[in-house]
């Protein structure tokens, strides 16, 4: 069992990258790894509730995220600064995700065996 962190830095509908990283995270969890996901930079837009990907002929990311606890992925974090910079209020976020300071994110990364972040 390994500690694996996925970092989502892109907004949800600019491409399929976020969906692919989440798919990978789910597969990692099925193979009994200890999976964490960090949302930062534009990636924090993923956390808004009430998305509707159908309008863009896409899956809806917020619905996919709400399935994560079913895969026993409970370590969900977001970069506090990224959320504040974008003036996203906490009541727009409707999945259980914990805020992390930059320091907290550094510690999170240091505790991993593997860190997966998509290409920028």
């Amino acid at each position, binding site marked *: 069992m390994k500690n694996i962190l996925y970092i989502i830095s892109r907004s*949800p*509908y600019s491409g399929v990258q976020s969906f692919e990283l989440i798919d990978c995270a789910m597969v990692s969890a099925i193979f009994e790894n200890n999976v964490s996901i960090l949302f930062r930079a*534009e990636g924090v837009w993923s956390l*808004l509730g009430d*998305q*509707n990907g*159908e*309008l*863009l002929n896409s899956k809806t990311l*917020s619905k996919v995220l709400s399935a994560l606890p079913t895969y026993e992925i409970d370590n969900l974090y977001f970069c506090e600064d990224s959320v504040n910079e974008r003036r996203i209020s906490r009541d727009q976020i409707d999945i259980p995700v914990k805020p992390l300071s930059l320091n907290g994110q550094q510690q999170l990364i240091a505790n991993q065996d593997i860190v997966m972040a998509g290409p920028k």
Partner: protein
Amino acid sequence: MSTLHLIFNQEGLASCKRLKAKQDKMILLGEAVYCAPTMSLAGEISQFHILKDDFDARGLKTEKELCFVSYDEMVELCAQSAPIVSWNA
């Protein structure tokens, strides 16, 4: 015919703002719709049309009165405008 600017992301918005003429029309679509809720504070949002499907799909909400357009209305604006400039950087 008036000029229409299609703005696809935040970088595009910054570039367009520097180069557009005062009377030009602008549409925020794709990633650029994320700029709309924060812009509304500056009172400048009234200059923009915003593609409604792109805004709603991303789960964005606003209390300000934004000038939303549908795909059909965007096509109409495009048909009425020349030149049309696309901004994504």
